[in-house]
């Protein structure tokens, strides 16, 4: 049953919220600050063995033989596994699109450098890595394809011979009369763009400790699982076990940013534990394994895109053609990043028609994974560059062309051509805010002055949508058919009126335990310290998903408030019985159960709970003596994709407007970020400090994507950026300290009016920086269309312009 939940913090049963909406100090922090959080690598179990994994040095090779006998003879090596074990015990991984998966250990052939080929468990990690060198593998190298354009060609080597092609998916979605819009346009703005592979890189890599129970034939895994319930279902399918035989315990994570959970590593350790008679087997992915073979890489994209534009700047149509290189298989949900842009395809703009020509290709590279934002950041980069090119060609200011195309506030809820519905927004207000913050007119004057001195200063100004609260239907067109991503919370009160909230996910960094505590403290009128939040394992927790898809803040709010409502109703039944009042006359308010209008007629929480737990003789007959309730929240009103893939998928549409000033050094191609202003509207801010922190974190990742980070492969499919010396994460020296101002346009569709908030800046920053770079380069007549805009790429562009 769906409950009616409070639309605003003012609707909470408290005179004035003391915690919700405030910059609350996080309840998680003392544990983390003292180094006491139990990250998975801290876990030590009796009899525990350590796993090491042997990986393919070839991007494409037939596996002729694997001989583990010498490794097994080394004292301390307890178990080994190879592709033959995987084939015997496990199924190939689930994939989207379907049928492009492999086993967790290569069977017959390896398809990318870093693919696991064999693994072993030994009494120490040092010994395990020694023993790897004793495994003999005979490979027969096969022709490699690492370029998706070559992979599409008919003479390409095939990754899956039985498919007869490397094209995993090809479809053109057409929303409205696109041809007519482009024919009727005054101008058509077109360009090609390249976005190179980037990825999550949480500071903690993945880790797991797995136990196979040989008697019960059941699995227990402790790990840094971002989505424990979902990963448990995956293990159940992989090992052909009923779901109640798979128990995942999610440890606190050192960040995730998409898809932490490592199916292969989990499955390999499960098989090793099985071979070792059920002894626990631990695997901690090292950083180089993460970079070459983990959930580290996303968005390897080639775009061709066009805008249909009128002379007054009105945009009347958008066409995007994307070839996305997913790497060797379709495991790991990389493909979902190519369909998510459909949730905000036309951005903040009232563009009436659009087309998406989408091709997903296999190559001999690491399978793509999700990364924060799940796909729109490159799409937004493309759309915003086109907006700027249109503005430049028409002689309109970049802010003005956006203003002329924004969806106006009175048209919400607004359905975009690709089918998703935006809940609310004030895009022009965000633009005006950021223009005022930066004193835009003055920035342009300063830019003119700098140009007069021969400096290459540019201004980027972009607006984006952050789709929030994902549902599976956003990925329905590539095979995620379900609707209703659950978040369940169980809350209980004890005899002292203190609260325990039980959730199905672990700490990851977004401050969600604090959010649960804030909500409960206000709802039941207690202090923040009176609430404990406990993570349950997958067999104990109510249906849950955990963090992901800018969803958990909203979903958790719904779940906590729903459970609180149910518990309140129960307390009211008991209290009204004990106070001999009518149920409808008793309410929970400011932490007491009181008879409306009767001064002094009230009971404290502990008194009601005390009666429930210790004086059942006093209870009304229809109440069980259990001060505990559960509620599972899902997003309402989600729809199945229609024949053109249109669906109401993401529930909320947050908005951000970024204004950035950069300077490009023509001698080195180096970009300096001089100023950065952000107006951000994610509806009601439940804990403004954590929202601001996530915005700034997204800026850092956006700076990385725009300027620094890139996975580079050579023609033989070898990764050339397999350390942090080559894959460059932004440090405190590269990330701008930004000026931020919030706007609050509440969502009419969510509890308390909050919107998904974790991904806004990574949706916006790369586009904003690239717009600024191109503004800086515009006097030279060149345009950067490749991300990241590394010094070398920009230097070449500038040099070529000077040569010309």
């Amino acid at each position, binding site marked *: 049953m769906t409950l009616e939940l409070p639309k605003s913090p003012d609707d909470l049963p408290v005179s004035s919220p003391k915690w919700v909406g405030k910059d609350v100090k996080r309840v998680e922090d003392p544990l983390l600050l003292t180094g006491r959080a139990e990250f998975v690598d801290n876990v030590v179990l009796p009899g525990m063995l350590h796993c090491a994994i042997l990986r393919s040095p070839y991007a494409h090779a037939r596996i002729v033989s694997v001989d583990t006998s010498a490794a097994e003879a080394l004292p301390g090596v307890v178990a080994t596994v190879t592709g033959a074990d995987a084939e015997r015990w496990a199924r190939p991984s689930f994939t989207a699109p379907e049928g492009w998966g492999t086993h967790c250990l290569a069977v017959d052939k390896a398809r990318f450098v870093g693919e696991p080929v064999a693994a072993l468990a030994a009494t120490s990690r040092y010994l395990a890595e020694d023993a790897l060198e004793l495994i003999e593998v005979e490979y027969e190298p096969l022709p490699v394809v690492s370029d998706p354009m070559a992979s599409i060609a008919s003479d390409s080597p095939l990754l899956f011979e039985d498919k007869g092609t490397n094209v995993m998916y090809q479809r053109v979605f057409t929303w409205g009369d696109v041809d007519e819009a482009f024919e009727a346009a005054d101008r058509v703005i077109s360009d090609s763009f390249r976005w190179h592979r980037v990825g999550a890189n949480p500071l903690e890599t993945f880790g797991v400790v797995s136990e196979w129970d040989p008697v019960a034939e059941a699995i227990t895994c402790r790990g840094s699982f971002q989505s424990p319930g979902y990963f448990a279902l995956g293990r159940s399918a992989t090992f052909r076990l009923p779901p109640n035989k798979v128990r995942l315990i999610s440890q606190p994570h050192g960040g995730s940013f998409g898809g932490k959970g490592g199916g292969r590593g989990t499955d390999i350790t499960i098989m090793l534990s099985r071979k070792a008679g059920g002894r626990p087997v631990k695997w901690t992915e090292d*950083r180089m394994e993460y970079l070459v073979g983990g959930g580290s890489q996303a968005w390897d994209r080639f775009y061709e895109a066009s805008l249909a534009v009128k002379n007054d700047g009105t945009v009347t149509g958008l066409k995007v053609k994307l070839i996305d290189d997913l790497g060797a298989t379709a495991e790991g949900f990389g493909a979902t990043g190519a369909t998510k842009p459909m949730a905000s395809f036309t951005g903040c703009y009232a563009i009436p028609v659009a087309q998406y020509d989408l091709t997903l290709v296999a190559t001999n590279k690491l399978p793509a994974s999700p990364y924060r934002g799940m796909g729109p950041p490159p799409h937004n980069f493309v759309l915003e560059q086109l907006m700027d090119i249109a503005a430049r060609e028409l002689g309109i200011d970049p802010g003005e062309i956006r203003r002329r195309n924004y969806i106006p506030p009175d048209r919400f809820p607004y359905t975009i051509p690709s089918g998703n519905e935006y809940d609310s927004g004030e895009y022009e207000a965000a633009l005006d805010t950021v223009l005022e913050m930066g004193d835009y007119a003055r920035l342009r004057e300063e830019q003119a002055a700098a140009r007069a001195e021969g400096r290459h200063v540019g201004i980027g100004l972009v607006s984006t949508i952050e789709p929030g609260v994902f549902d599976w239907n956003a990925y329905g067109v590539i095979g995620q058919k379900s609707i209703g991503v659950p978040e369940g919370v169980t809350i209980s009160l004890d005899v002292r009126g203190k609260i325990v909230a039980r959730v199905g996910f672990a700490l990851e960094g977004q401050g969600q335990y604090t959010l649960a505590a804030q909500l409960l403290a206000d709802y039941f009128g207690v202090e923040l310290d009176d609430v404990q939040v406990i993570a349950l394992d997958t067999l104990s927790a109510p249906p849950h998903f955990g963090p992901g898809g800018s969803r958990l803040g909203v979903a958790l709010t719904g779940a906590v408030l729903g459970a609180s409502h149910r518990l309140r109703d129960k307390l009211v039944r008991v209290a009204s019985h004990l106070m001999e009042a009518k149920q409808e006359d008793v309410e929970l308010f400011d932490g007491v159960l009181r008879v409306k209008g009767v001064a002094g007629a009230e009971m404290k929480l502990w008194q009601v709970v005390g009666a429930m737990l210790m004086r059942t003789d006093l209870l009304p007959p229809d109440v069980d003596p259990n001060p505990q309730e559960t509620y599972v929240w899902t997003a309402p009103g989600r729809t199945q994709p229609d024949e053109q893939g249109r669906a109401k998928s993401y529930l909320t549409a947050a908005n951000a407007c970024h204004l950035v000033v950069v300077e490009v050094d023509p001698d080195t191609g180096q970009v300096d970020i001089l100023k950065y202003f952000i107006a951000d509207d994610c509806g009601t801010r439940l804990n403004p400090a954590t929202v601001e*922190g996530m915005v700034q974190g997204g800026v*850092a990742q956006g700076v990385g994507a725009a300027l620094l980070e890139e996975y580079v492969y050579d023609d033989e499919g070898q990764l050339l950026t397999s350390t942090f010396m080559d894959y460059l994460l932004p440090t405190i020296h590269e990330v701008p300290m930004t000026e931020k101002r919030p706007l609050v346009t509440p969502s009419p569709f969510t509890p308390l009016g909050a919107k998904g908030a974790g991904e806004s800046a990574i949706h916006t920053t790369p586009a904003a920086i690239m717009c600024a770079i191109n503004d800086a380069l515009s006097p030279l007549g060149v345009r950067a269309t490749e991300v990241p805009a590394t010094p070398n790429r920009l230097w070449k562009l500038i040099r070529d312009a000077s040569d010309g």
Partner: protein
Amino acid sequence: MTQRRGVRLTVNGTPYEALVEPRLTLVDLLRGELGLVGTHVGCEHGVCGACTVLMEGRAVRSCIMLAVQADGASLMTVEGLSPEGQLHPIQEAFREAHGLQCGFCTPGFLMSIYELLQNERDPDDEAIKDALGGNICRCTGYQSILESVRLAVAKVKGPPT
């Protein structure tokens, strides 16, 4: 395997002795043998700074040092910041200014900042950035870390006299 060697060291004021392989890294000694798991491993190749500890008062990367190199040394790890359970002013500042999100890199940052504040009473932003240039945080975007350090400086200095 190679002959094990004896290592004696002091960590957070407590003396320890261990018999280790010469190839054992310092961080594996701290975490695996001594049970001091507050120091984290982020990259194991000396770039990310998560494993930063103090050796004789100087910040070092415990993932690219060998345990035997710490023989005879006095070390401090994050566990030494709040031995009585009372948060150190730097930790307090991080909590107040939201200087952390996932918290995995945080112990390394805390140690780098501890070293900085031992050497400089009133570092400016550039000095703070220089001291933290070898610590990577993937969550916060550093702004709240910078604010935390400014706040910690104020706390450590105390009210103006």
